[in-house]
């Protein structure tokens, strides 16, 4: 007689339990919480605790973390967390432990002869820029916000406005140190473990340190070329013809414009300004971005309605029309305009929002146009959508960028019909050979993942080798069955 099913009955500890705060206290290790956590979109949310590792430097902490992992039973789960700028559930873990980026800020070795930086994973791009821009160096890739950590930049293999020229973040990462349950691994770009960790959404272990290439700049200013387009065809043509002439390129589509104006955009192209053209006050490399204001937590969800957003988009478009074709801007206004408003994610109210971002290959322009049309038709207020052309992919198993068109836009959630609309867009994207960006996702169907990410099997295999007991996971990984044990 098989009694194994009874054993489960009799063992109350097989119920999922919050990790115990008291039992894991050592001098340098403590667990706090639980707190209610979410990504930047504030939905979904889950309760999880935070693992704190104090004292020593990054090398010592690596050993402590490894000891903690190997001395506990495998029911304790860990999710690496950075600054929580991923939109969905990729850096939260219900009933598990989140790491704290503030504890991974010890190493900061800038090598000026090589132009490289060895840096602990908890440093943000903001901190790095504040230290190094005045010395004439810039990060190789920056997203639309400076408030992302090195760990998050590696795990999502982030892209910036220069992807068509420079590729993604880990194309400029020469070495990674990763704490996995099997040990502290030092990885080079050609290693399969590197390919699984870069873009691997925190599922192979905690990235503790990275060595990245920096790019030399002679000023902290950008020389910006602005062009306004009339409609989507015009936008596509402009980008196809002129992208390669500039290092940085992006189009902001007004998704509330319809009919003949459907897809009208403001395109901005940029280059780092050479010091020979610099005329401003202060040092050419001065860099000290400030907050203009911060949004309080009580902002009601109706604040953003179709009218207020339409007005904003109109303003943006008219401003684009008026601006000089060539202008000089600061790094922060060119790359990170949203960072000037603190906690702007609260604008969407308590119910939160999501960002839908996909890439479709070149040749699938019809799909691109159809998605813009469908998104412009829905009764949801949406600010500007960002359109850009990607260059070559990095070859990492789960990295998002691949040659083609990428479109990203924010949409308030918890509106009837949104789930179905996005499912419909997913089908179109997959049918044309595209994919959605995991760092932004909070709702895609798990059944589409193997079609969007054909190398997921290699990823699962390597992740399993590094972490055979599936200790590293996230709510996203459970939702999408990214790890082999979650299938």
């Amino acid at each position, binding site marked *: 007689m098989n009694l194994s099913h009874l054993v489960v*009955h009799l063992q109350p500890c097989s119920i999922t339990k919050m990790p115990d705060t008291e039992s894991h206290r050592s001098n340098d290790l403590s667990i706090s919480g639980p707190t209610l956590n979410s990504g930047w979109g504030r939905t979904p949310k889950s309760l999880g605790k935070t693992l704190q590792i104090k004292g020593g430097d990054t090398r010592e902490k690596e050993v402590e973390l490894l000891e903690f992992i190997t001395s506990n039973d495998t029911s304790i789960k860990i999710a690496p967390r950075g600054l929580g700028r991923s939109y969905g559930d990729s850096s939260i873990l*219900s009933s598990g432990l989140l790491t704290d980026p503030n504890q991974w800020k010890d190493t900061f070795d800038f090598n000026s002869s090589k132009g490289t930086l060895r840096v602990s994973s908890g440093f943000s791009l903001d901190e790095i820029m504040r230290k190094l821009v005045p010395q004439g160096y810039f990060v190789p890739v920056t997203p639309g916000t400076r408030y992302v950590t090195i760990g998050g930049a590696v795990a999502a293999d982030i892209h910036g406005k220069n992807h068509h020229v420079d590729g993604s973040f880990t194309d400029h990462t020469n070495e990674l140190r990763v704490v996995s349950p099997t040990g502290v691994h030092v990885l080079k770009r050609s290693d399969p473990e590197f390919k699984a960790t870069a873009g691997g959404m925190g599922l192979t272990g905690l990235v503790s340190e990275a060595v990245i290439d920096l790019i030399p700049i002679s000023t902290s200013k950008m020389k910006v070329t602005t062009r306004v387009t009339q409609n989507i065809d015009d936008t596509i043509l402009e980008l196809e013809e002129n992208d390669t002439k500039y290092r940085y390129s992006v189009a902001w589509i007004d998704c509330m414009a319809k009919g003949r104006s459907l897809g009208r955009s403001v395109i901005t192209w940029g280059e780092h300004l050479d010091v020979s053209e610099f005329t401003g006050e202060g040092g050419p490399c001065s860099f000290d971005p400030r907050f203009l204001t911060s949004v309080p937590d009580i902002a009601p969800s109706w604040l953003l309605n179709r009218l207020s957003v339409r007005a904003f988009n109109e303003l943006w478009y008219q401003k684009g029309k008026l601006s000089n074709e060539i202008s000089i801007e600061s790094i922060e206004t060119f790359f990170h305009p949203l960072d000037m408003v603190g906690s702007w994610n609260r604008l969407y109210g308590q119910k939160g929002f999501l960002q839908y971002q996909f890439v479709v290959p070149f040749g699938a322009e019809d799909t691109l146009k159809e998605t813009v049309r469908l998104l412009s038709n829905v009764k949801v207020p949406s600010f500007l959508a960002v359109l850009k052309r990607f260059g070559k992919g990095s070859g990492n198993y789960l990295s998002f960028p691949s040659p083609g068109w990428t479109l990203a836009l924010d949409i308030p959630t918890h509106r009837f019909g949104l789930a179905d609309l996005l499912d419909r867009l997913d089908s179109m994207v997959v049918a044309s050979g595209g994919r959605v960006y995991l760092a932004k996702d909070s709702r895609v169907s798990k059944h589409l993942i193997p079609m969007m990410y054909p190398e997921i099997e290699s990823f699962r295999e390597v992740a399993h080798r590094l972490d055979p007991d599936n200790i590293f996971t996230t709510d996203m990984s459970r939702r999408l069955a990214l790890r082999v044990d979650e299938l």
Partner: protein
Amino acid sequence: MIDANSMPQSVAVFGGGSEIAGEIVKLLAEKRCEHVVLCGPNFQSMEPIRSQIQSTSSAKVDLVHFDLSQIDDIEKVVNNIFSEHGPIDCSIIAGGILGDQSNDESSPIQVAKVATVNYVGPATALTAIRNRYLDQGYGQIIVLSSVAGERVRRSNYIYGASKAALDGFALSLGESLLDKGIYTLVVRPGFVSTKMTEGLKKAPLSQSPVQVAKDVLKAIEEQKELIWTPPAMRYVMAIYRHLPRKIARRVPF
């Protein structure tokens, strides 16, 4: 897990024979739900619901013995459901009995039975579920209440009072869980044509379980905390609730 549109991947129905819950689960299984646990006292009434769910989706459906009248066992059974079939993303409280007002009025034990199955059992189960959710770190709750609980009427006060109690309990439980990220929806259907109401005279605004389920799905996606179905019922009840007792007594439903 639950996604940004509030769509769960696994659902447990407490009162697994409920036709309304069956329709809700069918719709959820067309979205992200792939595992359903039907929990009820009577496998015979759950089997047809299982085959219906499986005829329109590939969801896995498990049946578990669960009895709202056995209050001493409820916590243990809920815990077992979570440990054996968990994680459970969404719990639907759907069990209940109508009773027979005219017969039960004089029967203390029948009154106790209706109150137990409709209120004491569900409140016990909800409390056990709440505890499991706090450990699990997330979850959502859907409680099928009734407009009958909004203003208890002479013609079915035994049932109505039990639903009034459940309704109040669920709304406040939901409030207490808000800052824990656990979302609760209370559904107040009007007259629904089901096995339970077979033979009863149809009340105004009566509807089918499918219609109720559609309203529930919309409410989940919109993350509403309380809905009436059909939506117009809300206004009917708002008026009815404010009628003076003398007049309310004479309203014929």
